[in-house]
């Protein structure tokens, strides 16, 4: 059975989902989030070609995303001014990909000569270099303001002019699907397999005929291609590109997406991109401490679930395959575990919010709204309440976690028994 054809139902399901999502979430805000998700799914998967597939930790991968964005913005503007011949706007990710690819080939030639820490350091260096350039090379980057462009250029085949956000959404959705399939395909090619081999044991790869630098370079260049495609779609979505797109912060965000989603599974970065885009758009409106929470999520994943969200899900695959009933026996302990964790988090978040409010707000008004309730941060009562809630939550967790562990071990033992018998 072939890896690609076996997965075609999944791709068809994804295509259907992409097609109907705008009908389910109809607001402009939701559509915007969906478009962002598509862009970041491509970017996070591209990033994982390096981190998860090739074992290269980059702190500067946003430069291919962002630079391709700048090139795309200039390209579209020049086309609009008819200074350049017309290139179909629907194929703009190919242009962005090419820009990313070229940047990736040049930078990758230098940075992939070494793996590990050296590679990570070089990537950080290039990231800072390009970020600094945005303020120096004003003609190209236009400093902190960035570049505006108008995506409504050229002919309008079948009325497709990208005047409305829904058309842009479908542009992103189609390219997102194509890029996902292409990147999945790549993992199944000789290049993809050798990329994994270099990640796992670069020394041995040299003695079976492969130049490890060449494998890393190729992975880097292809990854930059997809990052560039994502960058050009980002510009199509916002009609603007700013210095933050090439910044180290953006590189960090895509690292978070890939890692929190799970670098060990193809689907991981997809989950990460979806989750973090949602949190980024919703939580950032609710709380100023959003980055703190994102950091905490990252730390918790690194410490307790290095396989990310996909790792947690896939951990249950053998159980599901053995017997869905075994999986069902985990549901109740999980609910207890999650509920008690939520209680503890509720208290903790309350305290963080109050602390944040007190350290960042300089008005005389000491009351703020937490969970929709107005609390006075200068009063001792809310502090006591949140401390007690946290304490109770932690206490309850200490009751529920052993139960989860116990049920998990029971299920695993059950599976082992079945395998023996």
């Amino acid at each position, binding site marked *: 059975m072939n890896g690609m054809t076996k997965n075609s139902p999944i791709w068809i399901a994804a295509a259907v989902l992409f097609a109907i999502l705008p009908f389910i979430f109809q607001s402009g805000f939701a559509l915007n989030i969906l478009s962002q998700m598509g862009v970041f799914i491509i970017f996070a998967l591209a990033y994982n070609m390096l981190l998860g597939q090739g074992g290269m930790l980059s702190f500067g991968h946003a430069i291919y995303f962002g630079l391709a964005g700048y090139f795309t913005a200039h390209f579209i503007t020049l086309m609009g001014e008819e200074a350049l011949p017309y290139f179909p706007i629907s194929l703009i990710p190919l242009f962005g990909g090419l820009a990313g690819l070229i940047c990736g080939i040049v930078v990758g030639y230098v940075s992939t000569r070494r793996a590990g820490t050296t590679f990570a350091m070089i990537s950080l260096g290039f990231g800072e270099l390009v970020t600094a350039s945005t303020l120096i090379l004003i003609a190209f980057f236009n400093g902190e303001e960035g570049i505006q462009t108008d995506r409504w250029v050229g002919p309008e085949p079948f009325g497709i002019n990208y005047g409305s956000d829904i058309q842009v959404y479908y542009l992103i959705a189609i390219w997102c699907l194509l890029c996902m399939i292409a990147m999945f395909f790549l993992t*199944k090619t000789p290049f993809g*397999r050798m990329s*994994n081999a270099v990640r796992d044991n670069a020394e*041995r790869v040299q*003695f079976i*005929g492969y130049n490890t630098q060449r494998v890393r370079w190729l992975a880097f260049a292809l990854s930059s291609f997809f990052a560039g495609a994502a960058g050009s779609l980002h510009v199509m979505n916002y009609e603007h590109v700013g210095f933050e797109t090439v910044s180290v912060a953006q590189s960090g965000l895509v690292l978070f997406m890939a890692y929190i989603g799970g670098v060990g599974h193809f689907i991981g970065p997809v989950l990460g991109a979806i989750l973090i885009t949602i949190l980024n758009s919703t939580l950032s409106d609710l709380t100023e401490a959003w980055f703190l929470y994102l950091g905490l999520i990252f730390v918790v994943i690194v410490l307790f679930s290095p396989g990310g969200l996909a790792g947690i899900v896939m951990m249950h695959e053998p159980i599901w395959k053995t017997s869905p009933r075994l999986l069902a026996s985990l549901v109740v302990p999980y609910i207890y575990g999650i509920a008690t964790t939520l209680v503890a988090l509720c208290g903790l978040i309350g305290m963080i919010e109050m602390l944040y409010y007190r350290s960042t707000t300089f008005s005389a008004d000491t009351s703020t709204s937490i969970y929709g309730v107005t609390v006075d941060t200068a009063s001792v009562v809310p502090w006591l309440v949140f401390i007690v809630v946290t304490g109770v939550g932690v206490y309850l967790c200490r009751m529920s976690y052993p139960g989860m562990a116990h049920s998990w071990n029971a299920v695993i033992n059950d599976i082992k028994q079945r395998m023996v018998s």
Partner: protein
Amino acid sequence: MTTALQLKDVAKSFGNTQIIRDVDLDIAHGELHAMIGPNGAGKSTLFNLISGKYHVSGGTISFYDSEITNKEPYEISRMGLGRSFQVTNIFPRMSVYENLRCGVLWSTGHRYSFWHLVNRQRDVNERTEEVLEMIGLTGRRDVPAGMLSYSDQRALEIGITIAGDPKMIMLDEPTAGMSHSETEQAVALIRKVSKGKTLVMVEHDMGVVFDLADKISVLVYGEIIASDAPQNIRNNAAVQEAYLGTEQH
């Protein structure tokens, strides 16, 4: 008679320490050549020089009449020299089958292809199955290599080495750490995979060496003090003094 491997005045120093001193060695095509010597004599270093892991400090190495001195390991590998490692050196997270397939890919000409699906390549699959069968791990095909038993990992190590169908195989202590029966199996495997090929191996087990080898070289303090047929090595006074003799004390 074709010369498979020729070393001329090969020397290697690490800092001021000379590990290999002006080694000359000729290995004929089809020969089963064993390299013995006390610990620290430089056997593994010599392996690393030949296979390109280290650069020589002096001298030349040629492989089937092409000079390979200081070439990169992958270039030497592509010319048809396969080597194994003393410490098992596999891809632990990949399955047994995938490990072997990695070894097959270059030799079947797929190189860095990112436009072919690897499991659709009939030549790759056939060769991988063949090697899997040869090393006797067909039943463990989908097991992650890191979860194999030690002796199975050693067999896989040899499998990866021969997967690309090299002209010459270099095995670094293939039976190290094995029980008696495991060693017997390993010897049978080595005999099978080296059929029609040139074999060079470092080995400490004298039983294995005298059983397998057509010719034995004795390396002591970075110098080859004798290179001859097994019975002559056994009777060589210098060898007895320098190497075999020390074991009898």
